[in-house]
């Protein structure tokens, strides 16, 4: 008997969620990748954000978020192949759950979970926020009308539960 396994999202059973003016969607099976170490500028060129905590939107609709001087996360775009190491690849696909939040209620919802001001004036488009959400480490990226929430994959269900409860409260 032969069998080929396919990846399964751990959040597939609990997302999407629609409540109030917020929709939470599961993007755990969408492509994402990480690179860290020297050589990012040569590898990514203009796709490397100018400084940490910024993201750039690529022509193919993907995003590259810079989360440190020498570390990036790519979302919804193909991973470049380094010809040499560093930079080293980071297995973001399985390390990091990816939840997309949309709707006018996202900012008030997040205000019950996160100390960072996410209003547009303080957190404009393509801002990357590395912070604590519901007491766990998380990365928040503002992408136009959408918010990308990235956190440890094993905390994924907990994070969805915390977000969902906050939708109800708001």
């Amino acid at each position, binding site marked *: *008997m*032969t*069998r*080929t*396994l*396919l*990846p*399964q*999202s*751990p959040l597939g*059973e609990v997302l999407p969620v629609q409540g109030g003016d917020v929709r939470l969607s599961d993007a*755990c*099976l969408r492509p994402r990748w990480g690179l*860290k*170490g020297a050589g990012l500028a040569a590898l990514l060129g203009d796709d490397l954000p100018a400084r940490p905590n910024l993201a750039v939107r690529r022509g193919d609709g993907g995003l590259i978020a810079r989360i440190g001087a020498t570390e990036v996360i790519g979302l919804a775009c193909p991973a470049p192949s380094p010809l040499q*190491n*560093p930079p*080293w690849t*980071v*297995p973001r*696909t*399985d*390390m990091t759950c990816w939840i997309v939040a949309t709707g006018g209620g996202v900012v*008030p919802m997040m*205000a*019950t979970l*996160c*100390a*960072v*001001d996410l*209003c547009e*004036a*303080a957190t404009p488009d393509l801002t990357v926020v590395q912070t604590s959400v*519901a*007491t*766990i480490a998380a990365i928040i990226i503002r992408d136009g009308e959408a918010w990308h929430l990235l956190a*440890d*994959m*094993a*905390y*994924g*269900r*907990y994070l969805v539960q*915390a977000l969902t*409860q*906050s939708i109800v*409260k708001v």
Partner: protein
Amino acid sequence: MSGPSRLPAPHGRLIDRGKPVRFTFEGRAYEGFAGDTLASALLANGRWVMSRSFKYHRPRGPWSLRGLDANTYVQVGEQPNLAACTLPLTENVSARAQNVLGSLDRDLLAGLGWLKPFFPAGFYYRSFFRPKGAWQFWEPLIARLAGLGRVARATPHPAGQDKAYAHAQVAVIGGGLAGMEATLAAAEAGASVLLIDDGMRLGGDLLAGDAAVASRVEALAEAVAHNPAVQVIAPAQCVGWYADHWLAVMQAKRLWKIRAEAVVLATGALEQPPVCRNNDVPGIVPAEAVRKMIRLWGVRPGDQAVVLAPDPEAEAIRALLDEAGTTAVAVRAPDAGQTLVEVIPAPGKRGVRAAVFQAVDDQGEPHGPAESIPCDVIVTAGTVQPLGQLACHAGAQLAYDPARHGFVLQGLAPRAFAAGAVAWHLDPHAAAASGKHAGQAAAQALGLAADPGPAPAAAGMNAPWRVVRHPKGMDFIDVDEDQTSADLATAVAEGFTHLEHIKRYTTTGMGPSQGRTSALASARLARHLTEQALDGTLVTTQRPPFAPVPIRTLAGRGFAPERRTPMDTWHRAAGASMMPAGAWWRPAYYGAEREAAIAAEARQIRQDVGLIDVSTLGGIDLSGPDAATFLNRLYTFAYLKQPVGKVRYALLCEETGAIVDDGVAARLAEDRFYVTTTTTGAEAVYRIMLLCNAQWRMAVDFTPVTTAWAGITVAGPKARTLLERLPCDVALDAQSFPYLGVREGTLAGAPVRIMRTGFVGELSFELHVPYTYAASLWSLLMEMGQDLGVRPVGIEAQRVLRLEKGHIIIGQDTDGLTTPAEAAMAWAVSGKKPAFQGKRALEILDRAPPTRRLTGFRLPESAVAVPEGCLCLDGSTITGRVTSCAASPALGHVIGLAMLAPAQAAPGQTFIIKDEAGRLLTAETVALPFIDPDNQRQAL
């Protein structure tokens, strides 16, 4: 004063007479209207007494009607200390009085006031601490007699509590005229503004003002509500103002944490009670409260009133009373020859019967002929205390200004502004102007507006009221704490001259009002008694919270982060009992019967094959040319010559030589290692690696990959048979893939890292696959191994299996000081390396004789396992403790590990274990491991 006293419309602009609301107070049924507060509804029903005092259980009635005093605190259900004067009336609400023995009207402790001579200030400090331990007896009794509401200790944390963050360029505290003007001015300048107000409606109290003021307030409230730059948090109470304009604000079930760049304080001022004998009797109220009673709730305050106020306020109050049909039988100004020295109470001290006026001497004591004026309400005005306590939290001070006969705010924090009555702009027009200026100044401080010029001068000032010290006492300085002028005099006589010391000795200012109704009088009297000038006197230290904060509000919403392995749903569906390990949940065993399940699972691994979810083990990828060098310098073992494709045990010590973690280091390439850690040690080991390399500066990079790679251990004699049924590009035979090997490849299409390890002492393949593949792989293995008898195995069985093999668990078999030698793991320490973490300490420790050693033991056939931690004895001397103990399914008797004295550790000796019931068991030391000493099973 008794019977209903509701006035006809147009009085009562907040109540809806078409919507009656039924409620009970002290078990008696009443009726009010929608828009009432509990207090206004009680007043409308002729009930003034709403509470009993803290110490003497004297009847108390409303004072501020703003929730700023404790006189209307009631208990509603399980919620204590709710201010009835701000509690919206709701249908069928049932409230009770607090701090009474019996009932509010028939309080069995009402006579405590007669014992006042036996309760002087400082009484508690002298009376209840001898003999030693006496306080433990008295404290609960005193708490019952003198407490406030009752806390329902068994009540679970209510659902729906939470905390939220808010941010604004300008925060305005107080939604009166000044606050709303400040809000709009700052918003107009382009600032984002957050307005915090404690009222049910913006400008609430001022709605009771004259028509022009009320109209202006409504217009401002409308403008605020429709300004997109303004966020209003109301009704809400700011309870703390911390460094850098961090504000704590309570709102219903939410605690707001607000960060502002500038703050405008517009909290107003509070009328102060006159100090005279029986000045706490219900029916003595400030004019602003009377105004609200009449105009907002349509409550007639009484039949005959005595007014204590300077002109022109006195005439305005007289006109107000006329509106309600209350006769002002006397109007007295503060500078008249006589002052109010005593209030004659109605029977039971439940109301006012007369006001007594008399001249007072320099000491504040009455003398000369007295005039008694019958009345049922006394209305006061002209002496206020600015509500500047919040600014004091943030470093400002309230200092006495003799020109104003009151305290003024000084030393405001940078980008903090005061407006309105809190800054002595007592006239509504002046308050509005000061608010507008403060809003502009806040915007200017943020670079959003031009300099608005100098702030308008404040013209407000207090009437120079005297503090009356009545020879018969009961002249309360602090009604919260039942402290009279005699109590302050006692403190001064005891030698306390500083206000802070007097405060602590008498507790004046330490009640729920936090000095809001006592600071002015106590400062005046204390300075007089100590013959010190009032000029420049500071109020005592003001600390958060400004108002009582329920513990549930502080607790907020509970967060309990949980990490789940990919197989978590499968485990729970299979009937696993889950156990926590840090934030992780792991399956302990499967089935209802714990001991039977553990034994069956352990036997399964020894006989056939089982699956263990090891996803919680920490994982760190090390990449770079110095990866091996780094590991070699950090861990105790040797890694420089470790071949690619091999796994080595990894033992980590701290600088003291104590073991802190263990795992394995798998070399995937010359410059890549995959290092595992214990479940709870992953983050600490990662931090240690980062810290060490911050000093060592090696060319190595660290990536925590704990979650990226889920782990499944396939263990048992049939493990290889099972795995070979799945498509795999890694050769699994023993020759190609020997014990302690590591391979990368694919398994059933999933990327995989496979390690041959032997924690449970059987043929084992540790499969590390991406998180998103692991659940399907687990299910596939269970399906493919059905005929082999495969079953899931929990952590408890794994612990038994590793014990049989003599493997330790860090943190269970070791403590915070255990060295590798003590743990019988000297084999894991390289003696040839020049350095590793802890090496220097271990070398020093090795020079001394050993003091303990981890040793295997067995109990007699009939014995049952003893708990970890049981003492080991040599005669009556404690020589160690049991670290692990379990019934071994493979051996048929109980085995364990114990940290023993070296002299006891040789195999074949006996020692005594004292179990948790005190029984003494004889144990025999055994050489480790208990099974398979030649490692034949795991090397299959």
